[in-house]
């Protein structure tokens, strides 16, 4: 046995590059760097050789040439003479639209199912477990296709609404469910600002008023808290809050002259109102119920993570069940629920790329689908596509990090 553990200084041999802890990590990193450089160089030389062989080059000029195809659902002006870049922007907006809609509804489904899974009612509990298992264990692509099939094969054609005794009728005379999409009433302003093109100013006004109401209600509840701290009696704020939420916005909408454009049969198809295409609905609904099942599990786990002692302690303090939920259980449960919830939102955004399976014109279908096939610029298109999704996920991760830091348990 020897008690000497450190090798003597200056005793360098070639084998100590691998066996001596002083040099080993450097050796390994140099090896890794060389291997990495060789691999990348090899791939790059292959790429260049292949491109040269096929007479191709890397260029992003195609983005500014006319796209030459139509998109049926667009949020901004677009026609087949617009550039490929504009088609990609249309795709980006469509991706964000369906991701936003699906995030909202998936949260609603997930929270309801998650809370009901903890219900005291055996039947409801089992039903919700069934929902969660069914949707988590079947691929989302199959769900998208199933719902798209319902939209196209089961819904009646617009012609079924025609005639004296139509076989289908509109729901409340407001909504029309057809195999070409769902038609819903569309709002417009008769006394709005900016005429035809500037109607977004009006919507900005409405949103501004709603944000102002939000701040006003927060001020009201802050004052109520103050008063409660001073006098021990909390003033009733419910009716005041209700008024702050609804009165200004209703007055504004009335002043702008809000009218509804009701869809109606015109010729062979419905006209008026807003048309929500079948692919959008299929994607939206499928993503919502599929992700809702995952969110339900997160919600259930979050609520179960709050220990019973917390509820009991709150009850012992004399809080009523509703306030126990609002003040004690939910804040702690949300700390557990929100991080996986945000990563589910990220999953929704990434899964929305399955739009291409049902022909919804999101970024994958425009830039990665038609533009790629028409221009043959595979490398450029796929790189731009990946870049877009990377930016989105980095943004969502950043939001998550900010939230986690704000919500971290502050321990001494």
């Amino acid at each position, binding site marked *: 046995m020897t008690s000497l553990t450190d090798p003597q200084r200056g005793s360098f041999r070639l084998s100590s590059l*691998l*066996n001596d802890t002083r040099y*080993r*990590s450097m050796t*390994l*990193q140099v090896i*890794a*760097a060389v291997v*990495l450089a060789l691999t990348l160089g090899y*791939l790059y030389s*292959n*790429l260049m*050789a*292949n*491109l040269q*062989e096929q007479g191709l080059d890397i260029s992003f000029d195609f983005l500014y040439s006319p796209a030459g195809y139509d998109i049926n659902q667009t949020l901004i002006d677009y026609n087949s003479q617009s550039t490929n870049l504009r088609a990609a922007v249309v795709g980006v907006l469509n991706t964000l639209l369906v991701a936003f809609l699906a995030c909202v509804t998936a949260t609603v489904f997930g929270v309801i199912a998650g809370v009901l899974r903890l*219900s*005291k*009612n*055996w*039947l*409801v509990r089992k*039903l919700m477990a069934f929902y969660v*298992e*069914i949707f*988590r*264990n*079947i*691929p*989302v*692509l*199959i769900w998208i*296709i*199933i719902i798209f*099939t319902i939209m196209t*094969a089961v819904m009646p054609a617009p012609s079924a609404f025609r005639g004296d005794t139509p076989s289908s009728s509109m729901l409340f005379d407001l909504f029309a469910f057809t195999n070409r999409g769902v038609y819903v009433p569309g709002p417009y302003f008769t006394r709005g600002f900016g005429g035809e093109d500037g109607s977004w100013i009006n919507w900005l006004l409405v949103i501004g008023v709603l944000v102002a109401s939000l701040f006003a209600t927060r001020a009201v509840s802050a004052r109520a808290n103050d008063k409660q701290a001073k006098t021990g009696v909390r003033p009733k704020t419910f009716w005041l809050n209700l008024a702050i939420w609804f009165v200004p916005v209703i007055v504004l909408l009335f002043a702008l002259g809000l009218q509804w454009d009701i869809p109606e049969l015109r010729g062979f198809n419905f006209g008026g109102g807003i048309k929500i295409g079948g692919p959008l609905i299929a994607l939206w609904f499928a993503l919502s119920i599929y992700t809702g099942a995952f969110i339900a599990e997160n919600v259930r786990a979050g609520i179960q993570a709050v220990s019973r002692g917390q509820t009991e302690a709150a009850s012992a303090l004399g809080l009523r069940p509703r306030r126990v939920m609002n003040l004690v259980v939910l804040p702690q449960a949300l700390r557990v629920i929100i991080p996986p919830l945000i990563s589910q939102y990220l999953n929704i955004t*990434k*899964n929305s*790329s*399955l739009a*291409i*399976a049902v022909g919804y014109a999101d970024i*994958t279908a425009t830039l*990665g689908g038609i533009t*790629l096939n028409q221009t043959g610029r*595979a*490398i450029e298109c*796929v790189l731009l*596509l*990946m870049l877009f*999704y*990377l930016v989105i*996920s*980095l943004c969502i991760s950043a939001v998550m990090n900010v939230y986690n830091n704000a919500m971290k348990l502050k321990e001494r």
Partner: protein
Amino acid sequence: MSDTHAESVAFVRETALPPVPPPVAERGIYKWGRENLFATPLNALLTVAAIYVIYLVLAGTLPWILGGVWTTSSLAECREVLDGRSAACFSVLTDRWNQLLFGFKYPPELYWRPLLAFVLMFLAAAPVLFFDLPRKLLFFTGIYPFLAYWLIWGGTIWTPIVALLGFVVGYFVYEKLVHRSFATGFFGGVIAALAVWYVGGLAIPDLARITSGLRLEAVPSRDLGGFMLNMMLGVTCVSLSLPIGIALALGRQSSMPLIKWICVIFIEFIRGVPLITLLFVANVMLAYFFPPGSGVDLFLRVVIMITMFSSAYIAEVIRGGLAALPKGQYEAADSLGLDYPQAMRLIILPQALKISIPGIVNIAVGLFKDTTLVSIISMFDLVGMIRGPILASTDWNGVYWELLGFAALLFFIVCYGISQYSQWLERRLATDHR
């Protein structure tokens, strides 16, 4: 004190009354129903609503399923048999059964080969999944990948044998050298394996010519399809991505900045993009990165991309497991004088992997579901077969629900089975005493 005692009252009971069963309202199904179904008015309302929902679903689907037709050969014929009734035409499943499972190009007389590979898969997976089985079965697990390759793709037997030989020689060289240091053993093994493959690759054509009896009819990758393709992609990519995922997770925890950053960038990049864009890469872009004229087939390119995808996710799960281990475990390993590979192999990884099992299974289930995405890059997996050749054929144009329901059922059975197994394993591995 009381005045009443045994001497001054007429009757005192000296034995306890026999126990009486609880009242009807407090036992059995009555009590259970009251507590679990009708506890409050709201609860009762929910129960009624739930029963109504169940009734609606069953009333809609049961007659449709039970009245299904199984024996016709086209939709028109099936509609004739149904005679206006609304019921399922399951005959599409019996008629196109082989296509659904094997795709439409795999030679029918060779169906026994993938079937045999499928059955043997259970034998190979058994010792990995259930620890009570004799360890000698692991020997078969080791040769299974090469056997399955030979069975499914066919060709000369020498290709899988040379591949296997490379691994065996590499392992023996590693064993021989590992006492010097792990790195020497590892790199020595890799070099030995590469040498065997190089020499073997040169010898295969001659060997194949000499022993022409030892070959199966070759089937090209593009002829694979149906549910078989989903299974193959799922099993191959999960098993390949486990070791890569472990390596990435360890790399991400490494103290060497270069290695750490390579792993971080790889993982975050892969996790940031949807699988479908990676499949686009496999479909249209990856071929540019291989040497000109090498013609790597689509199946292999898809396997490469899906493996990269799942290994990034598995790496994150394992990183969670590594982070969950108490620091004392690392320190204990150090204090025993173990070096890094020994500490990882003997102390850290067994515990970290155990913690990560539920997460890994979740990834595996998710990955298996995601194999349906290959239908978008026009590979004919189960979904691709349904949407392509079967629904487009004149015989079965319009049979949506039977086919989609069948696909959903197959995936449900496999995924639900896997998640049940993982729960069993978690209970089995729970060594903490609660």
